[in-house]
Structure formats: C-alpha cells, structure tokens
C-alpha cells in the first residue's frame, strides 16, 4: 500500500477558469453515503423549508462522501475545521472531537493531504458545509479516481431516463402509460409459462426487468438466481445463462458474494 503523498505548492495561479466541471451525484438511499464533488453546486437545491436538508437532482441528501485535499486546518478546543478542495470546488468541513479516537483521527491528517470525508451536508445562512463524522487520509490514490467515477455513475443514474418495460410482458395486465411504472409481480410469469415460447431477447428482458423493479433497485445486496426463478417461474439454467451474459456485458455485477447480483444501473 502506498504510503507517500507528499505535495508541494507551486507559484500563484493565473486567472480563474470558467466552470468546467459540474459533476456530482449520489445514491438515493439514505442508508449509504452519497458520493459528491464539491463543485456539484449547480445541482443543489433546498429539499424543503428545513434548513439542514438539501436535494440534488431531485433526491434528498443528508450524508455525503467527499474526497479532496485538506487546506487551512485549524485545531480548536472542541473541534477541528478545515476546507476541502477536490478540484471542482471548496467546502468547509467541521469535525467535532468528542473522544480521544476523534483527536487521534484528526492528528493523522494535515494540510495538503488527500482525505476522505464522510459526514452530513448542512446549510447555514445560505452557505453549505459538512459536519464530518469521519476523516481519513488517502493512502491508495486509486480511491480518488474511484470516487469521481462513482460520482459520475450515480449522477448519470439519477438524471437519465429509466429503461422502458418490455411491452409483451404487459399483455395480461393494463398497459402502464409511464415507462417508470413498476408492473405487478407474478402476472407475467403466468402469461410467460402459458405461451411456452421463450425467445432469447424475451428471457433477457424478463430477467433484467426483475433487476430494474423499483422494489429491487433499493436492495444493496441485490438478488439471487433462486429469487429470479421464483419470480419468473423459469428454469435455473435459462436464468443462469442470462445472468452470465448480462454480467459479461457489464449490466449486472456481484455484490456481497458470487450468488448475489445487482444491476449496474443502480447507485
């Protein structure tokens, strides 16, 4: 594991550039930290009259993760404050120190170090800042790349339209007028098994539609082949073939083990 990270401040910068990078994205689930970039300000909005909550791309955000360089660290009696600069913008961070472990954590990081900040996004008098519950130094710099890729992926996931459900599945149910509407489970299974005609594309669409069911998208652990078998009433080997193909194409990925899968369109 790399243990370097020395940095050097060069001469003064030239004229400021126009806004060139407006990235930023976050997972919709409140149980996980949303990856963020400081420059995602163009997407911020107040979620409600509650001053402490923000909405980004229409989704309320409370916990965020930021990766950037620590600047202007000031150690005070009960807390440590600093500015985090991740190249897209700067944001103030406050880390309260209630226990000795908090102090030890902050003693390990200094000005110029790349750090990962997890905390709550707060607003006060129109200015956003982060109340951090975790600040740790980056030791593997690939984490910086991964963080930005995660920001981009989640941002795209929240801003691009959801895939349309296959029309042949809705033959036995009222056709939904909106592409994002979830179809009721099990109905299509009856229709499917009665027809007995399973073209490759139909099976693949069926399986992926299970992954994209709004009730499934929220599951961080994903789903298993037995679950899909139970939903679609399809043979195991058929589903496994589809799973393998979709995994090879990068549309789904393993989560907690080799038996759980999740759509790559999730956060």
């Amino acid at each position, binding site marked *: 594991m790399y243990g370097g*990270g020395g940095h050097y401040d*060069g001469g003064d910068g030239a*004229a400021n550039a126009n806004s*060139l*990078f407006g990235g930023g994205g976050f997972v919709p689930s409140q149980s996980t930290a949303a990856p963020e970039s400081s420059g995602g300000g163009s997407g911020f909005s107040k979620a409600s009259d509650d001053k402490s909550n923000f909405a980004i791309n229409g989704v309320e955000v409370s916990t965020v993760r930021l990766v950037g360089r620590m600047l202007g660290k000031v150690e005070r009696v009960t807390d440590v404050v600093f500015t985090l600069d991740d190249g*897209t913008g700067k944001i103030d961070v406050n880390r309260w120190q209630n226990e000795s472990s908090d102090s030890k954590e902050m003693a390990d990081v200094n000005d110029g170090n790349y750090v990962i900040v997890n905390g709550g996004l707060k607003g006060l008098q129109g200015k956003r800042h982060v109340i951090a519950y975790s600040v740790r130094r980056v030791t593997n710099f690939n984490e910086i*790349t991964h963080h*930005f890729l995660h920001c981009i992926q989640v941002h795209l996931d929240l801003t691009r339209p959801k895939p349309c459900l296959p029309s042949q599945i809705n033959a036995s149910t009222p056709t939904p007028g909106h592409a994002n509407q979830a179809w009721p489970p099990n109905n299509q299974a009856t229709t499917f098994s009665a027809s007995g005609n399973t073209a490759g594309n139909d099976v693949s669409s069926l399986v992926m539609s299970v992954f994209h069911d709004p009730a499934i998208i929220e599951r961080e652990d994903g789903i298993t082949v037995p679950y899909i078998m139970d939903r679609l009433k399809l043979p195991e080997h058929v589903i496994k073939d589809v799973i393998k193909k979709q995994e090879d194409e990068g549309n789904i990925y393993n989560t907690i083990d080799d038996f759980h899968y999740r759509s790559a369109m999730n956060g």
Partner: protein
Amino acid sequence: METSSPAAFVNAEILTMFVGRRVRTVVQVQRNEGGMVVGQSPDGHPLTIKSAMDIPVSHFMEVYGIAENNQTIRAEVCTDFGPSFGEI
C-alpha cells in the same frame, strides 16, 4: 461552498482545449530537470510540468496548474501518487 476555480481533468489531447485554464492530470515521471518534470500523460504523450516538486522517476504525479500551451503545465500543486497508481 466555493466553485470559482475548478480544474478540468485532461490528458495530452484534451489539454489543447484548455490552454490558459486550470487543469489537472496525472503523469508518470520520466525525468527531472531542475524544477521541471517531463512525464508521460495518461494517453501516452510527453508533458512538461514547470515548478514541479522532485518526484522519483517512474512515480505517478498529480498536477494542478495552468496549461501554458498544449504540452506544458505550470504547476500550482503536485502530489506524489507513488509507483503503482492505476494498476489493477
């Protein structure tokens, strides 16, 4: 929260579009020449980094700075990313 001076991620090819603006990239150090580093860009082209810190050859170095021309960046901040950045 301040967003007045963002830096665009660039490689050698994209750098030509951001001359005079703040950019960021990671280069692999090929040689040091007294305050100036010549490194290989992510897309395999040589870039000259002025005002760079002394980082060992073959290490990866992240650079924030102003693009002076399509092959030179005047560094404001350099960070040593070590010898194995980007490897799987």
